[in-house]
């Protein structure tokens, strides 16, 4: 089991989360060429080692997280919210 330290909920099993994918993808502007869009949508670095990726806390706070994780050892180096501003909203609603 991978344990993910969710900044909103604390440390939880990864089975509470859904894997999103590569967090470094930058989508091009709408008027970019088909080549640019093809690259962004279909082509991946597929890193063997530490990569930045997104996870969704599906069965928890339902927040998107950006995680630095090794794709070989599954060790996690850092976890941070994808949308830090939302943290205040969550706290205000508690």
């Amino acid at each position: 089991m991978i344990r993910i330290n969710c900044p909103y909920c604390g440390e939880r099993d990864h089975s509470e989360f859904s894997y999103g994918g590569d967090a470094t993808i930058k989508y091009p502007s709408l008027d970019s060429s088909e080549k640019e869009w093809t690259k962004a949508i279909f082509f991946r670095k597929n890193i063997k080692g530490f990569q930045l990726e997104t996870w969704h806390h599906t069965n928890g706070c339902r927040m998107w997280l950006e995680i630095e994780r090794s794709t070989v050892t599954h060790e996690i180096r850092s976890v941070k919210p994808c949308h830090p501003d939302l943290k205040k909203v969550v706290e205000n609603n508690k």
Partner: protein
Amino acid sequence: MTKFNAWNVIKNGLNGQSYWTRQWRDPEPKKNYDVIIIGGGLHGLATAYYLAKNHNIKNVAVLEKGWIGGGNAGRNTTIVRSNYMMPGNHEFYEHSLKLWENLSHDLNYNVMFSQRAHVSLFHSPVAKDSVSRTYNIMRLHGTDAELWDLKKLKKKIPHLNYNNSRFPILGAAVQKRAGNARHDAVAWGYARAADTLGVDILQNCEVTGFTRTNGMIESVQTSRGIIKGKKIGFAVAGNTSVLWQMAELGNLPIESHKLQAFVSEAVKPLLDQVVVYGVGGAHFYISQSDKGSMVFGGDLDWYKSYAQRGNLPMVQDVAEAAMAIFPSLGRIRLLRHWAGVMDMTMDGSFFICKTPISNLYLNAGWNYGGFKASPASGWYFADLIANENPHNYVQNHNLERFEKGINIDERGAGPDPKLHG
């Protein structure tokens, strides 16, 4: 190499089995080859075999970083079928199945191919419609396919759980010519047959880099020295991106995910078919090996990984699916489980194609389906390398198909590799 036939079996039986020769040589790498295939799995070995057999290209090396049959060749559930519907795919997999049917004779090696039928259960009227469409397309192309109603299914496989109220079994889509084979025997059979035709199989030979001149790959740097090759083929599914980036070619429409499989202790004959709990239900497939073990698997681990080991949530998930469909397995003990690294592609289909480097050819992206594809994969990859022109069946199985909008997406799951199960 001693041929397997009745005469040699009897002769060696009387001589204490002392006259068998080794199955393939362990040569030192030569300096030059006409073709270097990187990856000594089923696809690489099959490619080398068909290069020598179909195209008379015999100065071929297969480079394997570990030992042959030690990667994904030994990490699968050995299912062989051809129930695909997309243009290109169904012709390709049907040809593969036809090659399987004669493979033991062709290789002079018993790959224990058993056409025991592949039974896909469906669990809702919508699932029945969907699978009927696929199986009708198969029939239109001359592939065997049929639907079993509940009465026939109960007669054939009486011990499924027919009282599952969440996913009731309504019937099954069946391909009778589909079945299983012995995975190690396929690797050994291809290695032995390729070696007999003059192919060098170089084990413990890891590729560490490439030397480029004039835009071509001139030689391959390996842990056993520098080897020159006129043409280079990649057949390293699971690690394709790593090699691709070693050749400085950038990104690929591939993510590496791991898929687990499980083997139980051996039991008496219990299941005579490959059963899939899949259409409109969970995702679970099971068969019984010739030794008696139940061999089964389910979904990917759902996150990208190069680790060849599985994670526990999926073990639980697969066990739950097993119990839902096959309650009599409840007290069976697991012997072992493992994970293989899959090239999951953006549309769930494979690549047999040319690359931006003129003497480099790519065979990759086999998702869940690499085992059954091995013979045809070798056949058409060898054809591409020898003739420089992709065969009609694989003309769209290239890296440009995404930009052209001709994705070959059997499931219609879209550009998310983990969903193409």
